[in-house]
């Protein structure tokens, strides 16, 4: 008898625990992970896990190098991120909640102020000179020299 009672008690406790645990589990998993659109390129410039953790540092380093030193490499440039990750529908990385940057940052609750100044859309390609002259217009031997 005693064994049966013990077994029953255990069953009741387990059931109660399961009932109690269920809502708690719901609360933890309340928000779905953001579903991100795949970028347009083959693969990211860095390993996914690395870029997930380190993209702020990479961008910060790049911005100082570009603005202050005039180093214009594109590997970690924000403009290139935008070109690759702009959403199919919106054409932007942050104009709707489904867009690449906005989706993850709203999930993580981290406010972004990149887009106060930077364009969220790729925009037009810079116009390259149609026919590259033998010498650039800034070079000394430019045929169209301005000396009068």
């Amino acid at each position, binding site marked *: 008898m005693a064994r049966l009672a013990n077994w029953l008690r255990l069953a009741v406790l387990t059931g109660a625990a399961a009932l109690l645990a269920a809502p708690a589990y719901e609360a933890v998993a309340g928000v779905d992970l953001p579903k991100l659109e795949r970028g347009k390129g083959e693969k990211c410039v860095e390993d996914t896990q690395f870029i997930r953790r380190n993209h702020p540092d990479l961008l910060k380093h790049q*911005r*100082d*190098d570009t*603005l*202050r*030193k*005039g*180093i*214009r*490499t*594109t590997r970690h440039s924000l*403009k290139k991120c*935008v070109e690759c990750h702009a959403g199919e529908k919106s054409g932007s990385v942050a104009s709707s909640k489904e867009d690449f940057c906005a989706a993850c940052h709203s999930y993580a609750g981290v406010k972004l102020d990149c887009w*106060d*100044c*930077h*364009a969220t*859309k*790729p*925009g037009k390609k*810079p116009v*390259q*000179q149609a026919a590259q*002259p*033998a*010498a*650039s*217009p*800034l*070079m*000394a*031997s*430019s045929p*169209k*020299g*301005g*000396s*009068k």
Partner: protein
Amino acid sequence: MSEPIKQQNQADAGPNPSGERRAFLKAGAAVTGALVAPGVLLYGVAHSRAPEEGASANKRWGLLIDTSKCGDGCNDCVTACNTENGLNGKTGPQDNQWIRKLNVKDLRTGFVQNLPMMCQHCEHPPCVDVCPTGASMKRADGIVLVDRHTCIGCRYCMMACPYKARSFVHEPLTEQNPEVPRGKGCVESCTFCVQRVDRDQQPACVEACNAKGHQAMIFGDLKDPESALSKALKTVDSVEVRADLGLNTGVRYQGI
């Protein structure tokens, strides 16, 4: 007095004071020159710097403006600037103008002149001196910029600038040019179209002025004696605006 000269020598010698490397480089340069053609310097071969190279202190970008060719009512440089940099073109007290077209009148004679006024890219910029956060800065090649990442919008630099070249962004902006990030709460001014200069193009204003046939602006490297700008500066009488301040501006005017 001997110390600066000593420093100069050290800088010349570079990391290898033995001089062997220098001799080798000189020999290499001589061979290259001979290959091209005697007496012809083919600067075009050594075209734009690599992206990872960065701005060099061996250059200083400058601009010469011939006010006699600057037409009354002509706004081509301003329009080109607005298009390139995403400005709305309004000229109110709270609007952003990177180039202002000015009419200057001699009150005694009534003689009127036109000139574009923008950031003069000083060698000793007062805006950089007063900036409390280091946001206002001068690049190695002499272009004066605002780092919006550190600008707190205090506007000291606007007060310090003798040329009224800077303006403050009062309203939130959208649809910026991807190459020219701009936003509310920061001070900004002419950048010599640094994004274009870095890929060997001329600033938008200069390109527009020349494309429309006015030819009132020459942009180039002040440190290169062979540049069109340096040659022009050698032959015409040009002045700095407010030369009394001793700022050694990168922008110079002819005919005022």
